């Protein structure tokens, strides 16, 4: 199961269409954490940074604090300029920029990290 966390519903659906797999869309980090707490461990997470409520970085901190979720690969999907940021310690395996990413790149991420 792939998680997509983005408060822009249309953008989230674009990512979901590109994934072509089983996905769950969440509009905020709390709902996503609740999904995980219910016992569902996603194989990959596409995460927006600016969210309603707790932001993407808060979510990453929460993820790395548990042994099981710390291993879940996270792809940051953002329109912020995070070039040069090293977020590997937070499980971030790739940063996709909303302005330039393509459905092909999203699919490549799923193939490479989606298990």
């Amino acid at each position: 199961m792939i998680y997509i966390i983005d408060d822009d519903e249309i953008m989230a659906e674009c990512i979901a269409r590109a994934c072509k797999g089983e996905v769950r869309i969440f509009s905020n980090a709390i709902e996503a954490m609740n999904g995980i707490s219910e016992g569902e461990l996603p194989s990959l997470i596409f995460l927006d940074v600016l969210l309603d409520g707790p932001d993407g970085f808060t979510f990453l901190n929460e993820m790395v604090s548990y042994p099981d979720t710390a291993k879940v690969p996270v792809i940051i999907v953002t329109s912020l300029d995070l070039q040069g940021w090293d977020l590997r310690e937070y499980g971030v395996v790739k940063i996709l920029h909303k302005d330039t990413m393509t459905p092909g790149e999203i699919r490549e991420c799923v193939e490479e990290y989606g298990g």
Partner: protein
Amino acid sequence: MDKEVDGILVAAHELKAPLAVLRQLALGLPEMETSGERMRSEMVSVSERAIKQVNDLTKIRHLEDGLFVMEPVAVRAVCDEVTRELSYLFSHNRRDLYIKYSNKSKLVTANRELLYSVVYNFLLNAMHYSGEGTRAELMVKDFKGRVKVAVRDFGPALPMDVWREMKRGWINKPTSIAMRPGSSGLGLYIASKFSRAMGARVGAVRHRDGTSFFVDLPVSKQASLFSDDLYN
């Protein structure tokens, strides 16, 4: 950072978001298995919102030149028009819109286009912040010789500093992206500017489960000389 530059950066960020969405939708078109009608509607809707926002920002410049007319405006008709325009977005995002008109005064002194933008931005803001499956409320009522148009959402409470700024009567500039998470406050900034230009009072009420934004406008004295039927 210079306040004006800061404001421009925030506005630019907000205007970039719909462009990024449009690009993704366009890239996804060739892979559509069906007719793509839903995607076409989304593209039209996203671009219309972005165009409206750019137009509103352009209008702010003209406000300073006083290039707008104050006239008797049928407030319910404006609200009806806005809700018709936004009904697709509300249903697409699975939000309900509850409308309650209890005003007896039909006409206010305002500029029709500016009032339209104020209500539009309030409602768009409420849609964004009300959670999926919840509703936003649009209420129009008489209030001490004025007409109050209020939009309530069921989202996170408004930060205290923004509430104080609203209490002063206007928002000085689009504030940081974290004004309310995920928003630059650009829509509220536009609504605030337009309200002030019309001599209307804009404000916010904090609820424990959301926020109401309101604008109150003077009842048109000129129009009260005529029969109500004229405006029905």
